[in-house]
């Protein structure tokens, strides 16, 4: 207690020096917190947004992924309802929904545009984010019409209620078209996504493509992403010998996982630099501070303070500095993270290609707050411990008559 008191009193009686050390710690913790928010934003985006869209497991018609055309409907799942029923009976499966994707030419009187058509089930648990992004009409519009993005609507001079023709190549390879009313307009954060996708009910898509009772993919959403492996194994067993391919999110996003790892490494290196520079600055400052008071420490030793006591006294001061500096650092970093969590950091189009929308959203996590707070304290503590070690190795006499 007396150590803490002395430590705090000392911090107060040298405000400039205290401010310098606290600023250094705060900057380091601030950087680390911001960087952590960025990394976690990326991770969070991946695990919520991307997995939200892709699901944790996909059951895909065999051969589909090998086709030259990503929109090929040559390979589709027969009896997908059976797959859905089986999937739903597995533990940890929250939702299993069919998707029928196809290439479509959207035609109005004078314009045409090639898009990705998505036949979705209205009961699907995957519709949440689409539902939230609708700005006109409603998700129910997929039942008897199509949903297009605001950007597509602008480009094609369409509005809610207008009619469009959708031309496809049906399952027999023949051109076929139907006209649909625009029953919903949506806008997500990703303009790439918006530019490309239109939505209708899977039943309408089946009719348009002449693929009754078929889907191209069944996506599964699990209560926990770590259950994917076992669930996928179950499914593989149940559908052994059938023309289906079962993929977990790890397989679906292999490239991105690698990228995230790479990014992580980069961040760790950056943090390492920050920590080393901060540690050098802080150690230096703490050392100066302690050497300055060597005579005081010598006196305490002379009146009976043990080496361990002196060590504790000095590290307590480091601890207090670390505590205050880390607090200041979080006060610096958290608002930055919160700001970018709310408004996003415009990393330009590059973030879109990483599936993150046109801006890149940070994410604040308790885990990183605690970790960075602890790191700040540790840096200061390490600096103080080094100073303490230097001082307690000297004899009492040398400490008393320092310099």
């Amino acid at each position, binding site marked *: 207690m007396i150590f803490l008191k002395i430590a705090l009193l000392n911090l107060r009686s040298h405000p*400039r*020096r205290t401010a*310098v*050390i606290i*600023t*250094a710690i705060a*900057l*380091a913790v*601030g*950087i680390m917190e911001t960087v952590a928010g960025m990394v976690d934003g990326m991770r969070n985006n991946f695990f919520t947004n991307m997995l939200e869209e892709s699901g944790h497991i996909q059951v895909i018609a065999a051969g589909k992924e090998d*086709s*030259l*055309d*990503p*929109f*090929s409907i040559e390979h589709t799942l027969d009896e997908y309802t059976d797959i859905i029923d089986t999937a739903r009976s597995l533990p940890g499966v929250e939702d299993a929904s069919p998707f029928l994707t196809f*290439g479509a*030419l959207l*035609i109005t009187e*004078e*314009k*045409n*545009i*090639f898009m990705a058509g998505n036949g979705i089930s209205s009961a699907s648990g995957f519709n949440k984010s689409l539902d939230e992004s609708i700005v006109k009409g409603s998700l129910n519009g997929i039942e008897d019409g199509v949903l297009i993005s605001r*950007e597509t609507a602008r*480009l*094609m001079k369409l509005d809610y209620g207008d009619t469009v023709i959708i031309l496809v190549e049906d399952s027999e390879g023949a*051109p076929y078209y139907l006209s649909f009313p625009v029953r919903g307009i949506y806008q997500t954060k990703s303009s790439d996504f918006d*530019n490309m996708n239109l939505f209708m009910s899977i039943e309408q898509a089946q009719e348009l493509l002449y693929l009754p009772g078929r889907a191209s993919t069944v996506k599964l959403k699990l209560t926990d992403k770590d259950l994917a492996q076992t669930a996928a194994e179950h499914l593989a067993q149940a559908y052994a010998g059938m023309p289906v391919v079962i993929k977990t999110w790890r397989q679906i996003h292999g*490239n*991105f996982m*690698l*990228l995230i790892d*790479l990014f992580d490494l980069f961040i760790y290196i*950056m943090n390492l*630099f*920050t920590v*080393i*520079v*901060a540690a*050098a*600055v802080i*150690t*230096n*400052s703490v*050392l*100066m501070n302690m050497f*300055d008071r060597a*005579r005081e420490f010598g006196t305490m030793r002379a009146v009976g303070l043990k080496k361990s006591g002196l060590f504790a006294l000095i590290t307590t001061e480091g601890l207090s500095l670390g505590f205050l500096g880390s607090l200041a650092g979080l006060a610096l970093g958290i608002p930055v993270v919160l700001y970018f969590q709310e408004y996003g*950091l*415009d*990393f*330009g*189009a*590059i973030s*879109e*290609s*990483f599936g993150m929308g046109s801006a890149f959203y940070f994410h604040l996590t308790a885990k990183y707050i605690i970790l960075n707070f602890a790191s700040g304290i540790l840096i200061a503590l390490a600096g103080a411990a080094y100073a303490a070690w*230097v001082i307690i190795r000297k004899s009492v006499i040398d400490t008393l008559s320092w*310099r």
Partner: protein
Amino acid sequence: MKLFKAGMKNILRNRRRTSLNVISLALGIFMMVFGLSWGQGYHSYVYTAMRNFEAGDAQILNRNYLKEERRLPLDLAVSDTRRVVKSLTDTNIVKTASPRIDFSVKVSNRMESTRLLGRGVSQAEGEVTVIRNQITEGRFFTDTDRGVLLGEDLARRMKLNIGDTLYLTAIDRHGTENFMSLKLTGIFKFGFPPIDRQVIFVDIESARSLLDMRASSTRIVVRFTEGTSITEGLEILNEKLANTELTAYSWERFAQETVSAVQSDMGSFYVFILILYMMIIIGMYNSMSMTVRERTGEIGTMRAIGARRSDIIVLLLFESIAISCIAIIAGYLLAAPFMYYLTNIGIDISSSLPDSVPVPFGERFYADIEPLQFLLAFAIGIASGITGTLIPAVRASRLSITDSLGAKKHG
């Protein structure tokens, strides 16, 4: 020089403090040199690649084209392309002008089909981009050639060899679907997936008849003559095009994704470096303050025997410059092996990036070392040393002589 020597002596007197300062500043210098050369490599490579692969120096399009670019509007075209090209090349600022037609096309080998970005080009394309050098098999078009060029992976995937026939289906300017068969005359590889996997080059005459474009094109890609800057060239072109339906745009407009990616990457790097240097300056400030406190008596003595205020400041500044110099050398030495590796061996980035990344990294990535980066790091290193020292030095020079001589009696 004497002052510098005195500075050196003092920094040797307190080795621990010096080495901690050196460590932090050396890391800062390392980050700086490394980051700058990396950034420079990235910057120049990527920008050059974007221009050489696709964008040229400038492009001339119908005024309304870009607003509807997503649907590749054939109706918003550059009509009478030949006349426009001629009037462009007649000026002394345009070296070459290559007309293009971009269109959505379904490509089939009779077994399978897929949708690609068709790009109708003439022989002149070889003058505005490096496509001629990227041909790995067959050859690039001459003006009389009819045929298509396909990316290496795509050709292999479709089991196509030079001379094989491809079947193209596209919707023409009037909204009618047309069909055409053409021979594969060349195979290319840019090392940039958005081109290698998504684009099929078609000779412009075939493209025109497939799309019923007569003499028009959707854009004209321009290379300026040497010595013409992009802004200057654009200004002249737009003046010339003032009363037409056409506008000239800088290449950056067509590499926006890349440009913004590079800019935001560099931006975050600068912010990071800035904060790092702030910490370094704080460290320097702190240790110089200590030095001043410790040597108050010494400084008082010097003043008493006739040193001017400015001498004291210069003495302390020399001390911090000496520390900075050591740190800078240490930083350079630290950076050297990394730089050697990055410039001579390079790293393979493209294999770990998803195909959709719109940045042409090529096969390997190399850093770009320029003396300027070292100079800049040197200047900033010295500057941050001086910045951190200035306040303590001025404070030291302002100490009253009598006070500082009696400084030891306290406690």
